């Protein structure tokens, strides 16, 4: 349904997104994950036809953003990261306006607007000016304008930023409820958001895709990786050296005499670490296996990529 093919986007001389490719199948919710400045917004703007890619192409239902931008735009609903709407318009009037621009037939427009007001729970504010609404209501209006043409594809750029927990929950369930019905790309820098709502994940960092898999797989492959936390008495640098020397250890970091040891996915190194520490003449004060949360996984993916490039 959505296909991104070797997309590179440059702002003048700066490369914001480099050779990005991925696909989203019909009905899937794809989490597009990356820290700030990773290139999520840029990629999404290419997909929406907001601007063309410098290199590469993107397709929505087989229509190219370069050759048939209007066909692409008819099929998408877009929620920008920092949505700006016409503050002087009333909610209902605005959604109707967007519906008309998106080509909803005149005869269906009225009914469609009513339906959107229901779906997005805007009944209490639909005669108010958009400028006077709270952040939460504004976000629902933005979602309303995205949905008004009943688009098969939804592009949501960090839709839950700035909302309170209740509103975040509401918006996530709304997104989740559209699974199977619409193809959705949801960008975020918040990991739990992905594990809660998305079936697949693409992780991007500094304009480059670093991982793409199902949410379950990414979660599993990373929870199988081990982290061991140690507290060791002795010269930290020498401890670090000793532990780093153990086969299977990927990375050792410390603050003072507390250490975090990253190891390969297979095998538990706790026994080996304990032996080496003691053999080295240090005092092993504490040790425990650390099962990684998704949050750590994310940090890890990103830092690994950075490490490899250096």
């Amino acid at each position, binding site marked *: 349904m959505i296909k991104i093919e070797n997309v590179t986007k440059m*702002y*003048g001389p700066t490369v914001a997104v480099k050779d990005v490719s991925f696909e989203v199948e019909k009905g899937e919710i794809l989490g597009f994950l990356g820290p700030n400045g990773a290139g999520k917004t840029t990629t999404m703007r290419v997909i929406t036809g907001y*601007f063309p890619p410098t290199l590469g192409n993107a397709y929505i239902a087989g229509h190219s953003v370069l050759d048939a931008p209007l066909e692409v735009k*008819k099929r998408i609903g*877009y929620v920008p990261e920092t*949505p*700006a709407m016409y503050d*002087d318009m009333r909610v209902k009037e605005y959604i109707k*306006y967007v519906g008309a*621009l998106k080509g909803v037939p005149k005869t269906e427009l009225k009914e469609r607007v009513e339906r959107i007001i229901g779906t997005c729970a805007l009944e209490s504010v639909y005669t108010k000016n958009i400028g006077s609404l709270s952040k939460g209501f504004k976000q629902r209006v933005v979602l309303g304008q995205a949905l008004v043409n009943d688009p098969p594809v939804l592009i949501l750029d960090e839709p839950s930023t700035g909302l309170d927990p209740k509103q975040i929950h509401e918006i996530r369930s709304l997104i989740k409820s559209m699974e199977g019905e619409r193809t959705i790309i949801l960008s975020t820098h918040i990991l739990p958001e992905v594990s809660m709502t998305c079936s697949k994940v693409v992780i991007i960092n500094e304009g480059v895709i670093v991982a793409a898999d199902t949410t379950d797989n990414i979660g599993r492959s990373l929870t199988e990786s081990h982290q061991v936390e140690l507290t060791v008495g002795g010269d930290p640098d020498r401890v670090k050296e000793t532990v780093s020397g153990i086969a299977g250890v990927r990375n050792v970091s410390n603050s003072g005499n507390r250490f975090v040891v990253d190891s390969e996915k297979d095998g538990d190194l706790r026994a080996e670490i304990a032996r080496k520490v003691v053999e080295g003449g240090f005092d092993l004060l504490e040790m425990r296996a650390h099962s990684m949360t998704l949050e750590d996984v994310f940090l890890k993916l990103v830092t690994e990529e950075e490490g490899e490039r250096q």
Partner: protein
Amino acid sequence: MRNIAEIFKREVRHYYTSPIAYVVIVIFTAVFGFLYFRNLTYYSQLSYQLMQNPYYPQRIDLVMAVFAPLFSSNSIIFLLVIPPLSMRLFAEEKKSGTIELMFTYPVKDIQMVLGKWLASLTILLVMLALSVPGVFMAFKFAGSWEWGPVLSGYLGMFLMGVSFLSLGILISALSENQIVALIISYGALLAFWFLGWAIDPNSGKKMADVLTEFSIIQHLDNFIKGVIDTRDVVYYVLFIFTCVFLTARVLESKRWRG
């Protein structure tokens, strides 16, 4: 077509709900009306004096005494009141960011430009229409029904007004700041106005002639005299077309650069 109509409606509604259009219309009507009554008073005094003079039985020409100088000074009024109508059309959308969603709707750049352009043109038409009752009064007062030069004068003012608007929209698309757009519009209109005065006719006759051809008010003269010259019409139409076309191109290049 539907897109143009929708954008047109929204923009007209915006003019309708914001103070700028009202202020502009009021100022235009007041200044235009003031000049009109001044000319008319002068005309009536003159006619009265002439009627006392048996050796001068002809009447003085209403068009030459009232409308020609009025239409001529209207260039200055337009220069002052039209840029405020065009300044926000794109600058505001860029500044507030509403243009982002617009760019993701299935709307062509030129449709966006035409919708806004037509809306601003509507305000211009309202302004001109408000001055029409005065014309009827003058005709009734003078008992003269010489329509031709007045109609051509109005056509000229309309074309000049639309030219001002079109240049203003182009500048609005180039800027993110309404006030900057306003000031640049004033500067650009003045520059187009003064073309032709730039060179002393004695020293460079040819050059002066060429530049005069480009001057935006020079082309109004014939209309005021009651002459509709194709060259003048073509000048304004080309000027307007170029501005509208360039505005669409500016939007397109904005898209490419992000």
